[in-house]
């Protein structure tokens, strides 16, 4: 039996080696896919720290508030600020509408005056509660910083600018309140007090990864960390097209009829075929991880980082189960297809759909709620989660097994149905 399985494995590998188009599909296409998708998806994965939002800035105030707003936005490091000082209102809006700048910010002419009036009014109420005139404090909307938004800009960018403005304006207001309070106190005490500065929030923020941090890694997931495992899984499942096509070809060419009259079982043939394609999947993994580690940095992308050696063992284990699920699915498609065209269309369409809903194209957590639920029944999602457990979350075997079990059950179900289908066909 073992000799026969080895013969099947050897034959499958020879057939694959002689199939140039198949080799392109299995090895070259995924390399391009990983590289292109990682580059394309680089921006959405970045943490907005690379001056990606282009802001057109106009200061009508000309006073300390206008300057402070500009300095505050620049200090965030999230924006590329261009001066729109010379532009009239129409041209200013037009440049944003055309998408030359994603957001336009206009500080109103009376901004410094409004801040001063509100601060002084507040001080008057605080220090002269009986004589202070509440009606003298201008309303909050007496001066408003204008945000002009490019209609094509994502909500997340708009919110980033807005929250930065809120933070900067809150800081300006607080500083002004402190300054006015100092003046009042100096008048009461007759002394000169040292300037008071806020210097940031009174309670800081300490951001940590839930898993141990990989060497040199500053973020939990970047475009490389998502796209390399994601498209490796896609490539593994895309071998379905080749595997199922070869099965159909074997049947239509008459080789299957000969095999049915020779010693050996359906199970031996399937094991041989699956073993050969598992080898293909493991070599795909090795190649694509190498691309992630050494090639993607050449495009200015972060390199794929690996954990300690025991994580690599878990990675290979995960890849074996993913490969098993992929090849078993290929056998299933091959069993039910009558022509090579059928197997190609059925196999590729099924893999593309399962990958789209399974979080390969974009992570599942940014999909709408119902899609997240549907996505969790995709074998490609279990595969993605298995890789994430090892590569990002540094999980252990117990955590990994939670995703390996459904993959194994999926593979078993595919094989069982395929064996039954082959027996039914031969009994007709």
């Amino acid at each position, binding site marked *: 039996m073992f*000799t*026969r399985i*080895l*013969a099947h494995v*050897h*034959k499958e590998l*020879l*057939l694959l080696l*002689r*199939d140039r188009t198949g080799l392109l599909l299995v090895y070259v296409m995924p390399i391009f896919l990983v590289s292109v998708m990682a580059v394309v998806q680089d921006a959405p994965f970045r943490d907005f720290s690379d001056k990606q939002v282009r802001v057109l800035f106009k200061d009508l105030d000309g006073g300390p508030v206008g300057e402070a707003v500009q300095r505050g936005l620049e200090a965030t490091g999230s924006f590329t600020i261009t001066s729109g000082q010379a532009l009239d209102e129409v041209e200013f809006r037009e440049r944003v509408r055309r998408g030359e700048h994603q957001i336009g910010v206009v500080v109103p002419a009376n901004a410094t005056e409004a801040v001063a009036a509100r601060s002084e009014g507040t001080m008057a109420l605080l220090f002269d509660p009986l004589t202070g005139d509440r009606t003298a404090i201008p309303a909050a909307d007496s001066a408003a910083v204008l945000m002009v938004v490019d209609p094509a800009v994502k909500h997340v960018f708009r919110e980033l600018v807005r929250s930065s403005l809120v933070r900067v304006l809150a800081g300006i207001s607080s500083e002004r309140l402190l300054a006015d309070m100092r003046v009042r106190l100096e008048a009461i005490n007759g002394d000169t007090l040292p300037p008071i500065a806020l210097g940031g929030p009174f309670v800081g923020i300490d951001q940590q990864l839930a898993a141990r941090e990989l060497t040199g890694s500053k973020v939990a997931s970047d475009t490389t960390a998502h796209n390399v495992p994601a498209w490796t899984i896609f490539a593994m499942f895309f071998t379905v097209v080749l595997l199922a096509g070869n099965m159909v070809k*074997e049947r239509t*060419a*008459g*080789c299957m*009829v*000969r*095999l*049915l*009259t*020779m*010693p*050996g079982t359906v199970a031996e043939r399937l094991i041989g075929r699956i073993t050969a394609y598992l080898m293909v999947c493991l070599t795909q993994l090795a190649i694509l991880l190498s691309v992630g580690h050494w090639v993607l940095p050449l495009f200015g992308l972060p390199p794929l980082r690996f954990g300690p050696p025991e994580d690599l063992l878990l990675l290979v284990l995960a890849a074996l189960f993913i490969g098993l699920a992929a090849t078993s699915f290929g056998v299933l498609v091959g069993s039910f297809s009558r022509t090579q065209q059928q197997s190609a269309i059925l196999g590729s369409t099924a893999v593309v759909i399962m990958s789209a809903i399974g979080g390969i194209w974009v992570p599942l957590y940014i999909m709408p709620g119902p899609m997240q639920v549907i996505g969790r029944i995709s074998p490609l999602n279990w595969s993605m989660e298995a890789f994430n457990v090892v590569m990002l979350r540094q999980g252990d075997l117990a955590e990994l097994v939670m995703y390996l079990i459904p993959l194994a059950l999926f593979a078993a179900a595919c094989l069982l149905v395929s064996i039954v289908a082959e027996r039914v066909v*031969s*009994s*007709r």
Partner: protein
Amino acid sequence: MIAPDIRVEGLVKRYRNGGRPALNGMDLQVMPGEFFGLLGPNGAGKTTMISILTGVLAPSEGRVLVRGLDVVKEPGRVHRLIGFVPQEIALYDTLTARENLRYFGRLHGLSTAMLGERAEALLVRTGLQDRADEQVRHWSGGMRRRLNIVVALLHAPPILFLDEPTVGIDIQSRAAIWDLLHEVNAGGTTVLYTSHHLEEAERLCTRVVVMDDGRSVGELSTTRGGGHERLEDAFLRLTGRQLRD
């Protein structure tokens, strides 16, 4: 008394989507060392018959014994005794001839030494050895047909089944195949062969059964088998002159 190598009893085959049965109560016996022909017009049921005899298809009724072994109940043991040449060229066309032979030989459990020896002998015998390291997709139809037969002979089976083994090839290749099959049969191998080439059957077979409409309509001796009537005349007498489209 000598037991038949192949014994068919009351064989019926109904396809799920078919109306009439493809086989409708076939009985026959093939004795050891015979070159037995199964002849019939298109649609007579020859390929269905040989598919059941070799275990590719399951019968609806009846049974097939090969050297006393039930094909349905003991397919593994039967498959060790038989070689089968399907109507299609059942080869992997991107593998070389030697790679095809190595693969199929290993499935028969031949040792590396035995496999090498048998493969080379057969390649030489069929004149294929010079191009045996080329992918068979580059070969002519006649060469592929010869290799198709070589694969079935690789494990020296005592019983050989051939389903229209000379379809679509030139005269030279056909003559070479005839010589090879004569030689194999002369070596003691029982041969069961289907065809609608009466001239070929006349030269090769010692005995033929004519099938029509899923049944045996007559048994004939060929001139090789000592018969006196021309096979074509007997065939038309048994199956009629009506066209079978």
